């Protein structure tokens, strides 16, 4: 065994009986870049949380397996321990203080100091910060990452690309750093900045650091990595040599998994008629999402899937159409213009939405199932109310709500003790059915469902998917299904739109090859775009 910077041995982790890491092993050699690639939910962040001793891991029962840092088995109690031991992390979100200067950010809490009058009396804590050495150190670190800005400029107002490099400079400046982790560092960078970053990474590796590089961008992987580990569903599916592999091959390994259900084939009915929804140049401002100019048509009676990697905008589309986040663009519902930024208008035009954020947007956890189901219809459409002269003061028709809830519980097979049960007590799958029931109570003709099976156990997943198919078949609903799980989109959709960097990269048939999907998701399917 050569001396390794980091070795992970059989790391396994369970969240509430859900196995998210199933014995992951990988090795990082000093002076090399090890790329870790995988879809959302493949287990990359959990692996990093394990490595960094994050509280979530401990609170949910710890992990199995060993983390070996430079030959010693370590078990970090907190991220602080990990940093002490020589692991540096370049975060996806910036951890910088805007009001402080670049140098101050780089040296924060590690400032070189010199004695002062106070420190002679009260001890080392009150020594003065040595600003000259601070600046000099920062300058060296900034030069190492190739950033030429003034080290005393305030961080606030700098372009995001610069902030990313300051983050890296801070990690580089730490004297004891042995291993640097880059968590999707290029996600927010422009093309040239990304190239520059890759060069910096190479230079750092050349000085003997071990680098763990987490990314979605496969071309970058091939460019800089010395080793590649592909993670899928919490397992290492392949460890590759970048010299002997291709982007297409990695893409296949990333997404390729046997579809849960065989697809029923494109149906004839879905092709005719005017579109249910026409979207032109939709842009949505949603934090962490990027919807810049999305155009597509949702045909009447079809199930259109939306796929794409996290942050590229797939989630933002439905949220924008529903008016939950500020949106611009032109949207026609059944040929008539739909007012954006107005959830009530969207509901009244018979559009309904089941949010990806079930706990945040989808349910009222401490209210009954029956009220959860009826509430949106009560407020947006004035249904389930006794007649009365004053619209806002109409009284709830409890019997109607109860009867409707019972019907829905039966139709969607919601497992519960009765319509009065609080939704918090239900399992994830049943909560999702309540969300679907709530959307159905609006009697929509077009339904948008985001991440229909997120956080649901395997058995329930299939039932929820079947429910979507059933709604489409029996009630003729047009569906827009957004999901991070390509397999489930392939199982239910007639067509799948792949989003990349805020635009529709391609619309593919569900039986298109894994490679095509992988390429489309990383923006490299330049030829053969099939607008099927």
């Amino acid at each position, binding site marked *: 065994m050569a001396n390794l910077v980091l070795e992970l041995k059989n790391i396994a982790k369970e969240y509430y009986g859900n196995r998210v890491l199933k014995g992951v092993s990988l090795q990082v050699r000093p002076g090399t870049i090890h790329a870790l690639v995988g879809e959302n939910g493949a287990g990359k962040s959990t692996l990093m949380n394990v490595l960094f001793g994050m509280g979530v891991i401990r609170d949910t029962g710890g992990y199995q397996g060993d983390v070996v840092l430079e030959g010693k088995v370590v078990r970090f109690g907190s991220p602080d321990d990990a940093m002490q031991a020589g692991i540096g992390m370049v975060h996806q979100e910036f951890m910088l203080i805007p009001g402080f200067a670049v140098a101050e950010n780089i040296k924060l809490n590690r400032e070189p100091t010199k004695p002062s009058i106070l420190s002679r009396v009260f001890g080392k804590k009150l020594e003065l910060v040595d600003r000259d050495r601070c600046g000099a150190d920062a300058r060296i670190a900034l030069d190492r990452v190739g950033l030429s800005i003034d080290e005393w400029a305030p961080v606030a107002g700098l372009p995001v690309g610069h902030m990313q490099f300051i983050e890296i400079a801070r990690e580089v400046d730490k004297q004891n750093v042995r291993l640097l982790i880059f968590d999707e560092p290029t996600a927010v960078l422009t093309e040239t900045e990304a190239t520059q970053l890759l060069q910096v990474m190479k230079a750092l590796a050349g000085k003997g650091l071990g680098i763990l590089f987490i990314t979605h961008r496969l071309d970058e992987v091939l460019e800089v990595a010395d080793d590649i580990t592909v993670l899928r569903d919490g397992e290492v599916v392949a460890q590759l040599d970048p010299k002997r592999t291709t982007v297409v091959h990695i893409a296949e390994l990333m997404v390729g998994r046997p579809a849960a259900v065989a697809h029923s084939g494109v149906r004839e009915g879905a092709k005719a008629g005017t579109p249910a929804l026409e979207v032109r140049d939709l842009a949505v401002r949603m934090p962490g999402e990027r919807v810049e100019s999305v155009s597509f048509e949702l045909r009447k009676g079809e199930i259109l899937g939306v796929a794409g990697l996290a942050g590229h905008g797939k989630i933002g589309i439905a949220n924008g159409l529903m008016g*939950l986040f500020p949106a611009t663009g032109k949207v026609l519902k059944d040929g008539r213009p739909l007012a954006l930024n107005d959830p009530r208008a969207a509901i009244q035009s018979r559009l309904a939405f089941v*949010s990806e954020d079930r706990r945040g*947007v*989808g349910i009222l956890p401490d209210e009954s199932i029956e009220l959860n189901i009826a509430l*949106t219809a009560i*407020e947006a459409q004035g249904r389930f109310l006794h007649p009365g002269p004053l619209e806002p003061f109409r009284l709830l028709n409890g019997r109607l709500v109860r009867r409707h809830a019972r019907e829905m519980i039966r139709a969607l097979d919601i497992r*519960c*003790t009765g319509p009065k049960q609080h939704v918090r007590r239900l*399992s994830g799958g049943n909560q999702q059915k309540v969300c679907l029931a709530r959307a159905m109570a609006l009697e929509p003709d077009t339904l948008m469902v985001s991440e229909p099976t997120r956080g649901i156990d395997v058995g329930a997943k299939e039932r929820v998917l079947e429910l979507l198919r059933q709604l489409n078949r029996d009630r003729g609903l047009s569906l827009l299904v957004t999901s991070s799980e390509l397999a489930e989109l392939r199982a239910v959709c007639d067509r799948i739109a792949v989003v990349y960097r805020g635009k529709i990269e391609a619309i593919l048939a569900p039986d298109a090859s894994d490679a095509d999907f992988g390429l489309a998701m990383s923006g490299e399917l330049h030829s053969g775009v099939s607008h099927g």
Partner: protein
Amino acid sequence: MAETPTAVTARDVSGDERVPFSTAIREWVAEIGIPRLLIFIFLVVLLATAVITRMDLASLLTDSLVRAGRNGILVLALLPAVQGGVGLNFGLPLGIVCGLVGCVIALNGGVVGWPWLVAAMGISVVLAIPVGWAYGWLLNRTRGQEMMVGTYLGFAIVSGMSIFWLAAPFTNPTLVWAIGGHGLRTTLTLSGAFDKLLDHLWSFQVFGVTVPTGTLVVFAAACALVGIFFRTRLGIAISAARSNPRFARAAGISDARTRVQATVLTTVLAAIGIVIFSQSYGFVQLYTAPLLMAFPAVACLLIGGASVTRATLTHVVVGTLLFQSILTVALPVTSQVVQGDISETARLIIQNGMILYALTRRGDKA
């Protein structure tokens, strides 16, 4: 063993778990809350002492009922604020001041008896609506600090109104200072025609306890109206927006609007509450009297079991009865036992301790 203890019912039930007896008790205690239990035990001890020392239990109970009825609507006024997501309304004095203005205008016009009560309430409500709206607007601009803002706004308004009481052109000689001829007196007596109008209405005696029926009926009716309101479309929107603002937005409800609506309601109820309070008390108290009125009301609601984010009618009724009974019973009982007055001390400890306790548990069961 004749029966199998694990018999499964035919119904498809997943959340129905059976719990051992000890856990059941623990859950029951958790449900009621330790502070509420302690206060209840304290009350029982007080009452027992009263019986042992042969005090007039009937008059103690009468006083408890009177005080509960008197303060009830002021406690109820807090409910819409909690349900609307603006927390405990420490700005209650805003509504109270509106109610006082209503009382004084009606008195100044020389109205007596029932017409006075109706006029006072009517004027109060008309004033409280715009005041509540403005208060709600302010709370929307200071989100997350509603209770702090409410407290200081209440203090500011009460002080500002002190100038108003002094300067306002009221002329009725029974209201203004006898010497000098203008500026309202600190306490206006309602004796004679308007004093205890509702307390005496349909009042009757059982076992020596006089029941202030009218006031209790009005309190009950107000509770019922608020209860019904929260079953209307508007009421449901208000509590949904509190429970989950993002859910509400997805249903086309603007939580900025529902918060204002809830604030208007709490202010209007506070205005009505002080009118009921004044008729039962027999005096209209001006100047700094409303300064601290929010605190006992908040304590009542919390002792009833409410939290900063959730309150029900049961919390209002139980809390009012418990807290007001303690206040009534503690004074005579403790002076009997310890030869001194510790009831005011006890009141402050319970009242402020309860508020402190609730704030530390903020969001616990949200």
